[in-house]
């Protein structure tokens, strides 16, 4: 069995003696006998590390969709981007991995400074002045953004573009059951949001607008229009941004976004079956006291040395309790540190190059696919590193067939989209080569033939 308890039997005995107890069971004398579990847990006996690994490798082996077995063309909010050895090595340092929230800044400058640098980089990507120390994932960041937006606007109606990730939209609805927010979905037309153009006399004018940039279908939305709707209605503009797109596209902040949220997995975190990921959250200074999650600020120590510390704690639940703006405590700091390392590795030119390569590869793949007889465009708006196609067969069937050809073909759009059953969302990152794309196109052509 596992050997993580250091105590020898002798030691346990002398400790019990020190406590005046005669057995370990006595430690639980305060627990009413009737409640105690009168049997052993029905779990297998513990095993040593090699057996543990064998068990876990057994699970791993049953996953056909491993990126070392299927070439990944799936995106939809989780992307197969390059993770260099250096990111793994640095973010994996045990000082970062095995510490906790920097409650004692004197011995936590490592994590604090890394998060401060992360905040700076996320703010710059968003084009906004402040970013927090992370949220759970893109979806939870979206939920927090809506909570902030409703609080700031004082209006409970939220207009969410249908181009927002369907899972995020589900989370918004789920959480709205508690907050009472009114989530209204605004439909897409040919891949981009068609905002209501007559919103002058609404019963429930929106407090928040949320739009993707690019959106779930990969399409680049017109943020100027969204901003105009906000200006008209007095809503806050929340942009769900793909942070990789910032390599080529104007920042959401430049378009007038009030809050920017996003999925930070793209910066150095493995696909990992969906988690742990990284919720990005940036906003305007005016909203900083409503900012969910932790925030690191610069200050100095008693000797005047530059130091970092978590700040504006008064927002947090350990101080404000029921009046807190958010209940987030443990967040995704390690992924934030990972993103700081990865963004340091990319640097100014690398982010541009990353986005450019994604866009080139996507363009190449999209052109080739749309040249096939049996494949049609799902939408026509410009895209960056992701696009949807319409297949002559159900997309789920195509995915199964493509797996046999060695590809994870993409994400079926499914019921969240009109005619989604035949829609396949395809992402082409900078890791895909021409050879892989050519082979993919040939395979898909064959897969949809029958």
């Amino acid at each position, binding site marked *: 069995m*596992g050997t993580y*308890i*250091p*105590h020898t039997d002798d030691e*346990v005995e002398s400790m019990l003696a020190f*406590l005046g107890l005669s057995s370990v069971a006595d430690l*639980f004398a305060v627990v009413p006998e009737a409640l105690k579990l009168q049997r052993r*847990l029905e*779990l297998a006996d513990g*095993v040593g590390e090699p057996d543990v690994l064998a068990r876990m490798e057994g*699970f*791993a082996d*049953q*996953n056909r969709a*491993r990126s070392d077995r299927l070439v990944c063309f799936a995106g939809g909010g*989780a992307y197969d981007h390059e993770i*260099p050895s250096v990111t793994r*090595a*640095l*973010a994996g340092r045990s000082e970062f991995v*095995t*510490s*906790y*929230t*920097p409650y004692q*800044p*004197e011995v936590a*400058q490592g994590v604090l400074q890394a998060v401060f*640098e992360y*905040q700076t980089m996320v703010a*710059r990507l968003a084009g906004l002045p*402040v970013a927090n120390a992370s949220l759970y994932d893109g979806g939870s960041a979206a939920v927090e953004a809506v909570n902030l937006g409703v609080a700031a606007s004082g209006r409970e109606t939220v207009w969410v573009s249908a181009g927002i990730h369907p899972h995020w939209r589900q989370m918004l609805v*789920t*959480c709205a*059951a*508690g907050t009472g927010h009114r989530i209204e979905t605004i439909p897409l037309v040919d891949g981009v949001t068609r905002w209501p153009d007559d919103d002058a006399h609404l019963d429930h004018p929106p407090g928040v607008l949320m739009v993707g940039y690019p959106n779930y279908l990969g399409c680049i939305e017109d943020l100027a229009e969204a901003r105009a709707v906000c200006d008209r209605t007095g809503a806050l503009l929340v942009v769900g941004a793909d942070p990789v797109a910032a390599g080529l596209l104007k*920042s959401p902040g430049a378009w007038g976004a009030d809050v920017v949220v996003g999925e930070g997995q793209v910066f150095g975190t493995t*696909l990992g079956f*969906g*988690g*742990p990921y990284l919720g990005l959250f940036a906003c305007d200074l005016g909203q900083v006291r409503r900012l969910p999650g932790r925030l690191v*600020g610069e200050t*100095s120590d008693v000797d005047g*040395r*530059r*130091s970092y510390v978590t700040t504006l704690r008064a927002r947090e639940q350990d101080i404000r309790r029921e009046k807190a703006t958010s209940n987030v*405590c*443990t967040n*995704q*700091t390690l992924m934030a540190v990972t993103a700081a390392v990865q963004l*340091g590795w990319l640097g*100014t030119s690398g982010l541009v190059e990353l986005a450019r*390569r994604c*866009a080139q590869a996507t363009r190449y793949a999209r052109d080739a696919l749309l040249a096939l007889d049996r494949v049609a465009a799902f939408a026509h708006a*410009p895209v960056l590193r992701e696009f949807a196609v319409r297949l002559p067969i159900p997309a789920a069937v195509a*995915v199964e067939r493509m797996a046999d050809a060695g590809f*994870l073909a993409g994400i079926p759009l499914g019921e969240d989209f009109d005619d989604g059953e035949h829609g396949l969302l395809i992402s082409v990152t*900078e*890791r895909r*080569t021409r050879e892989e794309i050519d082979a993919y196109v040939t395979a898909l052509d064959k897969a949809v033939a029958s």
Partner: protein
Amino acid sequence: MTEPAVSADGGAPGGKANSAPLLGRAAEPTLFELSHPGRRAWSFRTSGIPEVPIDQLVPEGHRREEPVPLAEVSERDLVAHFTRLSHRQFSVDLGAYPLGSCTMKYNPKVCDTVAGLPGLAGVHPGAPASLTQGWLALLVELEETLCEITGMAAATLQPAAGAAGELTGLLLMRAWHEARGSVRHKVIIPDSAHGTNPASVTLGGYEVITVPSDDRGCVDMEALATVLDEDVAGIMLTNPNTLGLFEEDIAAIATAVHEVGGLLYYDGANLNAILGVVRPGDMGFDIVHMNLHKTFATPHGGGGPGAGPVAVSERLVPFLPGPRAVRVESADQSPVYEWMTPPQSIGRMHTWHGNALVLARALAYIVANGGDGLRQIAETAVLNANWIRQRLTGTYDVPFDRPCMHEVVLSVRTIKQAHGVRALDVAKRLLEEGFHAPTVYFPLIVDEALMIEPTETESPQTLEALAQSLERIAHEANSHEEGWMAEFPHETPVRRVDEARAARTLVPTFDARG
């Protein structure tokens, strides 16, 4: 050559190891100060893809004119920077971290290996169940295991941390009441509760009703009785509570809450104390969240990631978030796994399936320990905490002088009254002894609280060293003039930091520096 700019902290910027703590305690420059235009670390795969001009790629007007300014550093400087930062960071791997309520136990390295397995880490979450049978099987096994441990019927693995679990639980509570046509507005929590509890209650759309603790540190049964009515949706408790004390009246509480039609929510932050000994389900709880990052040794990562699965009793199963991985039988009787969304599901609490790699770590840890090993964890955690309690009784105040569970709350009140030394001072002084500080000023109901959770992975020798340090500090408090202790720490990478200034003059990014 042009003299390179001199950095804010003096000295030339660049790869100087001026911050390796073994070499002095100068500050580490930010990555932005190490940056030099044109430098780079990145490289990508050779793709061979024919390229189109950039203006055909990105629609005019959307294209940004200037790249996002990030740092520009060589791989070498990137490595030096973050390695030096890591040397400015305390961690479990460096020493004992008795941070109460956080269960900073040793995280077995084998779990890092598990989280790095290509067959787990390299799987896209949007791949269909047919291609991810291994992951679904793993999730089902973990769910079943957690149910056995908590005595519940089923669980969702989606919540990414304890607080997310709390909200999930409250939404389940709401959905359950609503399905029964009952509209309720209040949730009860004790005054000793963790701050996430009231915050979650609010987000769940309920009003927080606080019940006081009695003089034994437990829920005041009389006060509870006065707030219990048909408008109470439920009660949130952690047991052992945040004082490290077991709520002995839990059966009576359960009966009382159930009688008014309310549900019992178990905050599992303290589950480490009772593994294999007593189960929330058997105590009468209906909803249980677990902090896998605490109890099941997945490292805290400097503040996360965690994982906060929520297990429920039979009657709440139909409301669980979806999709859930379930085992179905295939034609040839070998198990097949599918995604299933419960009929009355509250919806979705995570973009994907929860913090999957954290879940895998937790399962590996449970497999390593086995059922009896888990019980031994609880036993040893409780033994360690009681040893510390007993050992320090007389040196510090013990507000509730009875056997504790996995952690003990001491108080510096007497010392403070006599010498002006606060819990904060003791904490800072302890840093310099080579230990992380305990949790201070929590729970709120104890004055000058020091909340010590040794965990089961610290040896008796380490406990002894910790006790000696805390005794030394108490002795110092009694033998030095006021203010002496407030000067500590001296030898840490930075000394006491000005928190007030940070809040007053907010500098949340490098760009906001004055």
